[in-house]
């Protein structure tokens, strides 16, 4: 090793650092490294030597690709951590956990890959944990799995479950609250709130409606995010004062209406409303919420060319005047049919019911209750 080598090594590492400044996860193949113009071209031997040194110093992490070997850069601070490791097992275990990154490594997996004794593995992990290099965590996908991750990074969103999970548990209350926000947003923007004012005076049937356009449905609200925000505020009192609520009904908008809110608009609305401060919701998350509402049969998709908007289903049945309690936005008249009602539709022993059997119509207590 001549005196040139440490210098070259440093130069190569710095060149690599610079090359991957935009993309920290960039991988370097042999060609990439040659192309950095640090090593004299064709001097494969030198390159090999340098890579060997860098790898030994943990500044390069080898990665096996289908096309061959490549290296990823490891920051010096990270590399320094390897110096704290005292045993060979520790190094091996830490390498695996390090490579797994934010996804974390499953204890069983580490064991299988290293083919070590359980005791040795546990010892190594314990030592690593004591040095505050790794930490244990659980993933929402499988709570019983023992997962390990480097102590200084956070588990990936796949492992934590994204915004819907709080401490590995699905935050149902949060989801429900957000759903009702989305629902009321869609409802307000996609329907016409008739205050029933015109019914007081007998206006000619052909005169166009005089009802005050709901702030949320107006052009101004659509253009400015601010108005949209107070439109979805939970307390609906200014929009529908209780004195008049009896005649306040929602009406469908004319065909061809172009301003049914899209996912982007709903996302913006939620952000403006600041209902989910701790958890910044991205568009795809809001889309998930909307999809669920669609499957719940509360909202339907409506396409106008390339614009995919959403509007409430059965808008006429979602009357503010019929709210069970003020502010309860998610009210609607449930539908019913012959099989949802008493007595047979609700009967828990319907399958057993048979003339002459243990349960039969004549002696049926559900019928008794219903007919009484």
């Amino acid at each position, binding site marked *: 090793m001549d005196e040139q080598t440490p210098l070259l090594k440093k130069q190569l590492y710095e060149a690599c650092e610079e090359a991957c400044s935009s993309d920290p996860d960039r991988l370097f193949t042999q060609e990439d490294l040659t192309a950095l113009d640090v090593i004299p071209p064709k001097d494969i031997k030198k390159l090999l030597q340098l890579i060997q040194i860098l790898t030994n110093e943990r500044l390069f992490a080898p990665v096996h690709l289908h096309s061959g070997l490549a290296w990823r850069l490891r920051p010096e601070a990270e590399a320094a951590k390897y110096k704290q490791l005292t045993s060979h097992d520790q190094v091996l275990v830490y390498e695996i956990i390090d490579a797994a990154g934010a996804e974390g490594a499953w204890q069983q997996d580490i064991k299988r890959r290293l083919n070590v004794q359980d005791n040795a593995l546990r010892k190594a992990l314990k030592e690593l944990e004591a040095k505050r290099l790794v930490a244990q965590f659980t993933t929402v996908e499988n709570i019983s799995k023992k997962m390990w991750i480097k102590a200084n990074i956070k588990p990936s969103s796949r492992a934590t479950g994204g915004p819907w999970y709080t401490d590995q548990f699905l935050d149902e209350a949060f989801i429900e609250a957000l759903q009702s926000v989305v629902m009321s947003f869609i409802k307000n923007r996609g329907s016409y709130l008739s205050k029933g004012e015109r019914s007081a005076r007998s206006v000619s049937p052909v*005169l166009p409606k005089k009802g005050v356009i709901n702030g949320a449905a107006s052009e101004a609200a659509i253009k400015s995010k601010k108005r949209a925000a107070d439109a979805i505020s939970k307390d609906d009192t200014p929009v529908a004062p209780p004195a008049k609520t009896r005649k306040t009904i929602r009406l469908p908008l004319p065909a061809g209406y172009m301003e049914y809110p899209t996912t982007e608009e709903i996302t913006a609305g939620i952000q403006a409303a600041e209902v989910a401060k701790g958890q910044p919701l991205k568009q795809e998350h809001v889309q998930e*919420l909307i999809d669920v509402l669609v499957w719940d049969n509360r909202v339907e998709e409506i396409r106008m060319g390339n614009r995919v908007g959403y509007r409430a289903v059965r808008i006429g049945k979602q009357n503010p005047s019929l709210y069970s309690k003020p502010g309860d936005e998610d009210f609607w008249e449930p539908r019913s049919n012959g099989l949802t009602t008493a007595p047979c539709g609700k009967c828990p022993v319907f399958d057993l019911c048979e003339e002459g059997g243990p349960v039969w119509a004549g002696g049926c207590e559900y019928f008794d209750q219903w007919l009484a």
Partner: protein
Amino acid sequence: MLVTKNAAELCALLVNEIYGQLPSRIIAALLARGRSNVRDLALYTSLNPKQVRHGLALAIQHNLVFYQTDHETAATTYEANPQASYHLVRVGKILDVINRKYGTMAKNLVNDLLMLGHVEVAELIRYHKLKHGRKKATLNGNQNHDHEHDLDLDLEDGEPDDPFNNDSHDVNGNGAGHSAADDMKPIQVDQVYDTMAQLIAAGVAETVSTTMFQSPQDLKASVEQECMKEFPNGVRGAKITAEFDGMVKSQIKAIGAERSITKRKLQESALYEPSNIKRRKLANGGISNGFAGDSGGSVLREEPNTVVRLNFDKCLVELRNQKLIEHAEDFVGDTTAQVFAALLASLCRKVYRCQHDQHTIMTEEEEETYFTGVRVTTEEVFDHLSPGIDLSTGIGTASEEDIDIRFAEKIRKYPPQIQGSNLHGTLDEGDEILGSDDEDYDRTGERPTGAYMNGHQNGSVAQNGTTNQTGTSRIEQIRQMRQHLLILAEAKQQFVRHCGQNEWTVDFGPLIQQLRYVELDTMIEDSFGRQGLRLTRILREKGKLDDKTLPAMALMRKPDVHVKMAEMEMAGFLEVQEVPRDNNRAANRTMFFWFFDEARTLKRVLDNAYKSMVRCLERLEVERYKKRNVLSVTDRRDVQGHEEEMLRGDVYTEYLEFLDIEKKLLSQVSRLDDLVSIFQDF
């Protein structure tokens, strides 16, 4: 109709409810054993052949049984007609719908038809006069009943085709007698004939021919046999087969044409001239009952021996309209539903049946309308709209730049396709998204929209007063009505299809399919909550899913999902498929795929509905038994109609209690029938 055990039980119960035990037992035996002759039936029912024949005559009278006589052996076999038996549950609804659409007299006529089964026109009218002419005259109450009784016996004794009265003389004689007897409400024979003519022309009643007593399958078979004689060398090879099929088809067409001769004649007699309709409407304020021209009635009068019966196919169409209107009301709103009603009324003048299969016999005209679909223009719809509707209500306003007329008025030339479990192309598919194709939308809406906007602005400036200078004009109203139609066309269910410039149609098949989902969803949501509904709808949309993907999509906790899925599987709404990953088939090495088997679920639900109806009727029977002391008193002829005066206080309260229970049970049956209709008959 799929005849399950429950359905068979239901048919027997319904027949029992209306026509008594004798035909009910025979029907039950026929449904259980299939096609039988009199001797076999006597064996199955433990009745003597005379009783069996008696019951069969009644059943045939009401088309509850088909019969087929073999030409060679001269042996007659009988087969149940479960559809007709089931239709009995809809009698009340049919009468209601007829009353609303064609007026009280039509309703009474249909009622008489239901009592008599098939009957000659002259006889029907005689009966009608007897029954309804004297109803108000309190004097002759008893006599009335006697007559009824006699008539029933006459009919039951068979020979329905035998003309047993000299029509004109008899009818006239009766008519004269009546007009003398009741001065309160004399029935004009002309009017009755006219109403009858109207019913036949509309298809609510149909003329009966001998072929109608055979089941459609038998009829086809006998036609085929007939045609076979033309081919002594047998039917072999493609060319001969085609020839044979063509022959059979044309023969069946001829039968269809023969059946509708009278109807055609009546339709031609200026009944459906638009001017005529308008005239009637003006005269009668919306209800098209009056039937101005007397030509229809006189046509019928010339052929008093024409045998008529109720045509349930057409009645079903009316009931379907009713249901669709209810759904439109539920999904969009009241005013829009009224517009939809007008559209359906004008559209369904040419729709004679809801469904058809390969055995359905149609005339050429029917076939044409069935397969190409019927369409109506905006004007026609408007003519059917009842004038009392305030068209300006029911739709919100939006500023004009928010409305894209190209989408609102988009024309969809082709009906949506039913694909698998999902309906595609409700709104987005069909023709490509506009792009360069400017002919794709109806421009009639454009100019009036401008005018409307002006109107709007005028209105808001001059808020009070200045009601309607531009207002009530026909053009303006039509424009408002179009808005409602457009909303119906835009709805996810696609109640209406805007199929051409100012032309509208309804794709009944896909629409009813949507309604099936709606009812199914209602049931699922009711039993398993919102989350259950969510899971099934995900599965319906995505197909089979394993239990890892599902919770993530539904945003639900895994254990919750499992509990819900297991619940729904138990109830038969979901199915699970196990795919083992290795030969051990251990549970932890097996993938579980959930899916929603739509056909099976529908069948199950349908059968559950039948069963539920059976239970209600059985319960009714039990309740009747419990109250038999009271009911035996109220059954007496002298008590009927005077219960309040004749009965002791406590007995009367008990009677009222029973009536309450009966009402509850029967209305539950009728609600269940709504479901059955949607799942099966519409």
